[in-house]
């Protein structure tokens, strides 16, 4: 279980998360839903270790990752995957090397076999010698996901990864994402501002507003919530 307890965080003196408490169950696909500036991405960055909370603590399965304004376990040691909104593919590496690079740096064995399996699973084997700028939007998404999963993370964080795709392609990639949980034995935290996207894939939804949690629960619980903000948010 991922547990955030009494988290406060700010950027340039602007408080973005205030006394936030959140528990996320294992092997679930949890969507953090909310409008821009609600603090969704900040939560991902704190869990990943890219940011250090001002106060409060973050635990995963009983291990404390961050506490009292310090990162106890660094980002590189948390065994977490992160898909950024702009994907962050390394532009000077081919598809193959983008996926293999993490393994190469870890001096892992059977790199080629692992990468080929991954390319096969995502159906992008024929693109392996291409550079990111030669790929379509959907192919880039798949490379970014494959690159994260090759290191076998326990948790996959996804920050609005489909925001630049058209509706048809979005549906296709969402199907992939839904299956990842079982196939790779993962917990997924998926950030989006689009409730339709969240309803399509989530086991659990956390609706955020101004750095606080307005409502959380299953898709059905969110849909039937009496919270005024939830009703307002779902109207649009």
């Amino acid at each position, binding site marked *: 279980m991922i547990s955030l307890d009494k988290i406060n965080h700010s950027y340039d003196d602007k408080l973005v998360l205030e006394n936030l408490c959140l528990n996320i169950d294992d092997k679930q696909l949890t969507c953090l839903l909310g409008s821009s500036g609600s603090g969704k991405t900040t939560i991902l960055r704190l869990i*990943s*270790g*890219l*940011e*250090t909370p001002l106060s409060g603590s973050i635990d995963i399965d009983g291990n404390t990752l961050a506490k009292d304004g310090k*990162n106890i376990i*660094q*980002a*590189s*040691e*948390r065994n*977490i*995957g*992160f898909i*950024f*909104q*702009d*994907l*962050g*593919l*390394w*532009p*000077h590496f081919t598809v193959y090397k983008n996926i293999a*690079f*993490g393994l190469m*740096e*870890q001096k892992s064995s059977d790199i080629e076999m692992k990468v080929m399996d991954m390319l096969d699973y995502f159906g992008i084997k024929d693109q392996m010698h291409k*550079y990111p*700028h030669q790929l379509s939007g959907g192919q880039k998404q798949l490379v970014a996901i494959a*690159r994260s999963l090759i*290191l076998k993370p326990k948790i996959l964080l996804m920050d609005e990864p489909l925001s630049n795709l058209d509706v048809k392609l979005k549906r296709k990639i969402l199907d992939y994402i839904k299956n990842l949980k079982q196939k790779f034995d993962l917990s997924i935290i998926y950030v989006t501002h689009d409730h339709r996207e969240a309803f399509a894939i989530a086991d659990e939804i956390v609706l955020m507003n101004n750095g606080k949690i307005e409502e959380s629960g299953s898709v059905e619980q969110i849909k039937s919530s009496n919270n005024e903000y939830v009703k307002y948010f779902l109207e649009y």
Partner: protein
Amino acid sequence: MDSIKHINIKNGSNSLLGFNSLLFVIYGLFIIFIGFPIIYTFGTVLFENDLSNSFKLLNNATFSLLFKSLILASSVGIISTFFGTILGFLLYKTNLKFRSFFKIVLLIPLFISPYILAVAWKDFFFFLFGNSSIISSYFGVIMVLSLIFTPLAMLIIGSALSNINSQIEESALMLVSFKKMVFSIMLPLIKPALITSFVLIFIFSISEFSVPAFFGVKVFTTEIFTQFSAFYNHGLAIIQSTLLIAICIILLYAERKYIADAPFLSVGSKGTNNKMYDIINYRKLGQLFLIVWLIISIVLPFIILFAQSFKGGMHSFIKAFNLLLPTFTNSISLAFVAAVISVFIGFIAAYFSIRPVRVYKSFEWVLLLIFAIPSTIYGISLIKFYNQPEFGFIYSTSTIIIIGYVGKYTFISAKLISNAIKQIPNSIDEVSQIQGISIFSRLSKILIPIILPTIFIAFIISFIFSLGELGTTIKLYPPGTEIMPIKVFTIMANAPQALISSMTLIVFSVTLLMISIFYFMLNPFIKKYHSIND
């Protein structure tokens, strides 16, 4: 898209600590070898010696000379900014033919030693009027310096113009005429670039030594040089230098944000949605202006030097070539070593500057201050500090020249590289951090390969500037050291005009040759990298 605004220095472990220590060691060495001599020289003269006599020498004549230098530098600043604005508009905002060619070729005067153009124009006036008294004046200095610095204004203003969002211009064009939009929207939006252009050109002009010295025009820098080298009045020279530095720093401070960011020192930034105009009625006039400027600033000086060199046959040219031959290897190797070190330190400073910690950013400010100090004064500071027995290994060897070049041009490398790093999305480094990739791999396998074209361009610029540097080198060169600009400059006083022209032509040609070699060697590679990084 977020760019790398900061790097999470808490991530990682021992390797990161080691890397941070390396950064501080480089910063420390730079301060010790380059920053400290300047502080030491000024401190010694200002606080230890009895300065009352020197202060008395700061009389009306000195202030009158300072005033003349200020007028001269202001004139160059205004003229260059004016023509730079026209060229910037024509090349960055219109669809005139051969824009890419002009953008590169018109920059050449910026990369050759200023005295080369001075020699050419003196020859031209001599050819026209039978004497060179008209050009050997403040007018001549202003004219030559304006031709040299207009490309800098063009670069700064063109870059600002191409970064205006097209929607801003288009919204205005829905309401007012094109002319009104230019004057009421476009020019006010690029005001920081216009001021920066004036300030930088003012500082470079007031610091320029070789052109006024060649024309025999007395300005503040030549006076400082005379006091230091001819009268050995170091105290007065330093006090005069302090006045000059104070003026430069005040001006820098006024426009510090824009100058420190230096968005114009950026490779391959295409601007956000740049709108190009078809100046239908003025297309021929615009094209003519570009051609005339090319002729005046590059073609004519080259033809004049060529004609003057071979007027009496090959004799002068062969003699000039033989005189310069021993300097080629030395000049090129010193410039090469200095450029490599400048790029290395520039990279470290750039990496420092993107971190949200004040002490890291201070490195870039130190580089900017040294860059803005007039070359002659910088040279004097180094020579005064290193002219001691324990520093013989620096003072009496070419090391002092390399130190001079590195201090002078590292700011340009640092700015080019930091602007390139800022264009890289934040996520590219963060993905690497999360994947547990070490700081050295992140730098050597991710960051450096992505910004490699910029690193090459920073190297070329540092190399070419170092190759032509005169103001600092003339104070520093150890006896017996043969360097191209020094050889030409020391011969200028007594040699026949044809020999001077020949030597200048050779230096001009060597510089152009080096630029061309680098361009043709690296252009395909840079193009390939740009297409990958797009």
